[in-house]
């Protein structure tokens, strides 16, 4: 076994590289004018609300320092909440509070932080520290998702989410992202989260990676990562498929969380979804994208697109 894969081998497997993603898909299918819709979570929420796509409830949004000075009044009656920058990227600047301990707020990792810490985070967020390009930003306070009990044993802290790549409205590849201690509970593969590849036809796990390497068990809890089955898979695919209709972004990454009560909720969208999903699925994206391009159906409905995905994208899923 060689240290490097040969390019022809990868091409044969339909593996997509960053250059190709950027040139042929991101700049080819994503109109620049639609970017703010997904880069700004506040806009995404409003858009989703209008289209009837469920998202975690927006509790507050702050964009001025004076609002931060009195934020404790707003947080007073909230036992649990999530703070995130509206234009954050890569899961940066997100704080998940799951409870109170007297003066202190308890993070999902169990760590305790004080009000000063929260105010500093909010200050950083609105001054653009965590945002794309360092622009001034606003901070979102939203309700904490109550993760489906099936995930209880799987994730260290944070709520696991499901990333689905949606191409021209067709769900083409999916993975479950589990926070780890290394990722500080965040479900971001760059930061050390575990990615579990999901069969796009059934929502069943097909393999898992951490830091681009195959794993079989969760590194913290040692829970085996085989045999996971996401409930309500067709409904979830319908949800992400509709995201294309509201954003018109041809190459889109949708992040879904499954709430114990509300079912699938749209967390955020990404116009430049990463490529590790291929390693998690043990399969390249190229064939699936081509299968979608080869379809000559005019303006397919959501149901048609989801049916095509559940059917294995015309044989592109092996």
């Amino acid at each position, binding site marked *: *076994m060689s*240290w490097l894969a040969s390019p022809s081998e990868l091409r044969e497997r339909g593996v997509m*590289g960053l*250059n190709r993603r950027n040139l042929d898909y991101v700049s080819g299918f994503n109109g620049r004018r639609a970017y703010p819709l997904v880069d700004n979570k506040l806009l995404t929420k409003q858009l989703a609300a209008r289209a009837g796509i469920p998202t975690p409830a927006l509790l507050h949004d702050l964009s001025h320092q004076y609002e931060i000075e009195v934020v404790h009044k707003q947080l007073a009656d909230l036992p649990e909440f999530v703070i995130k920058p509206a234009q954050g990227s890569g899961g940066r600047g997100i704080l998940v509070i799951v409870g109170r301990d007297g003066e202190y707020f308890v993070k999902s990792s169990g760590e305790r932080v004080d009000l000063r810490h929260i*105010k500093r985070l909010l200050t950083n967020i609105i*001054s653009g520290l965590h945002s794309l390009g360092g622009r001034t930003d606003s901070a979102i306070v939203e309700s904490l998702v109550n993760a489906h009990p099936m995930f209880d044993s799987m994730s260290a802290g944070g709520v696991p989410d499901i990333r689905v790549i949606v191409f021209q409205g067709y769900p083409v590849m999916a993975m479950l992202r589990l926070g780890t201690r290394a990722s500080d509970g965040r479900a971001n593969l760059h930061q050390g989260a575990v990615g579990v590849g999901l069969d796009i036809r059934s929502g069943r796990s097909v393999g898992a990676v951490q830091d681009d390497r195959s794993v079989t068990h969760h590194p913290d809890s040692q829970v085996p990562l085989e045999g996971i089955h996401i409930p309500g898979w067709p409904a979830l695919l319908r949800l992400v498929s509709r995201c294309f209709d509201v954003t018109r972004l041809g190459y889109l990454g949708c992040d879904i969380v499954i709430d114990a009560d509300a079912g699938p909720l749209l967390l955020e969208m990404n116009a430049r979804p990463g490529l590790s999903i291929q*390693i998690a699925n043990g*399969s390249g994206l190229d064939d699936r994208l081509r299968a979608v391009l080869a379809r000559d159906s005019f303006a397919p409905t959501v149901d048609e697109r989801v049916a095509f995905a559940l059917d294995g994208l015309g044989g592109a899923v092996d």
Partner: protein
Amino acid sequence: MERWFYLLGSVLLAAAGLGVAVYRHASTGVPVLPDEDRLVWQVEARVEFLATGAPAEALLTLPPEQDGFLAVRETGASPGFGFIVDQSGKQRRAHWTKRSATGEQVLFYQAELIVDPAHRVAPVPPDDVRRPSFEGPYATAAEGVLDAIMPRATNARTLADQLVQAANTRPLSQNMSLLLQGHAPGPLISALLNEAGVAARTVKALPLADGRRYQRLRNYVQVWHDGTWLFYDLVSGRLDDTARLLLWQTDAPSLFDVVGGVNSRVTFSMTSQSRSALGLSRLRDGPLDLTLHSLPIAEQATFKLILTLPVGALVVVFMRLLVGVRTAGTFMPVLIALSFLQTELLAGTVVLVLVVSAALLLRFYLSALNLLLVARIATLVVVVIALVTTLAVVSYRMGLISGLAITFFPMVILAWTVERMSILWEEEGAGEALIQGFGSLLVAICAYLVMALPLVRHLSFNYPELHLCVLAAILLLGRYTGYRLLELRRFRPLADRST
């Protein structure tokens, strides 16, 4: 279809650049390689003195324009000192001033001279010969020496030949022996010549030899003969070949003067370099010359630097798109490489790593202060400047002159590097910060190595049209959709499964 059109466009662009370059080479003969060269001397005069705390002033006589040497650049700027070239006297003098100086002071004057045998300067004729007054026994002795020689001399040249010979033939005549006891040989010979009504003067000149350091000027005698000044060595006599002799002091009363200091001395160092023949061509360019060579020397130096930037940009594009190295900031590496060009690689890397790590440590303290982003970056700029100053002073005190090189680092670049690194560190973890930090450093070093190549510097400055080729290469790379080198490693598990 579109792809072919695009490819064609890039190729045409490259061909245009290459075509213009070939045409220009054929028509102007500007060399393609940097080493089709002529000799260039770099001469440095080093004035040292111990300042007493009063206003300090130093004057150094500068070499006159002379046959065989084309002065292309001279600098005298020394940190802390005001510098002007005083043109009021018969000879130009460098003039350094400082309101108050204490301790050891070192001033540099540097000149760059192209050896050009065709370069001629109209000789300055002597003033009327002023008869020196030999006193007492010397008057008689001088008269005796001249009486013995005059019958054998037909003109100024032969008289001087005879005199130098007489001063070096052992045993010395009684008269000559007496004169040499009371006079230095140089002034004595010129005084004797003047006594005989011949225009002659004692001059100081610098014999040029590659790599010599801490040399002193030597005395020579010049004799006006046939509308030109002849050079006489005090021992070996008339010099026919003065190509390696740089005339320094002719008419000035002294070589150098220092006010407000003691223990002063001046020494000379020199190196020779090969330099492309364009040194001459650029000076002989006509008024219609629209090349970069028509700019003043200082601006040319700036453009030499700026014109290597596109090559650095190409390296960044290559490293990011083909290799897949992650960097903090897109073109930060080129700017760092540009700084390296001025600081030298090793010193620059050490300084960069030192300042960034020190500032990172401080920044973790700053982040606890809960400042707004802008204020934090501003604070960092101040901190970085403090660090840079400290480093410069410490390294200078320790005798590491490269510490001064640090001042070439643009503060904003340092501060931004620090800021980006610390954000990365907090948000993506130490691992990612180190990967991107070293990625940036690696790309910067690669860009530096390419930008510092003599060939690259030569071509980018002398054939600026070749930048069209660089542009074409960047455009082509911009359409590359294949795998990056590091992706072959990253996606290896996918390839393994198929086997």
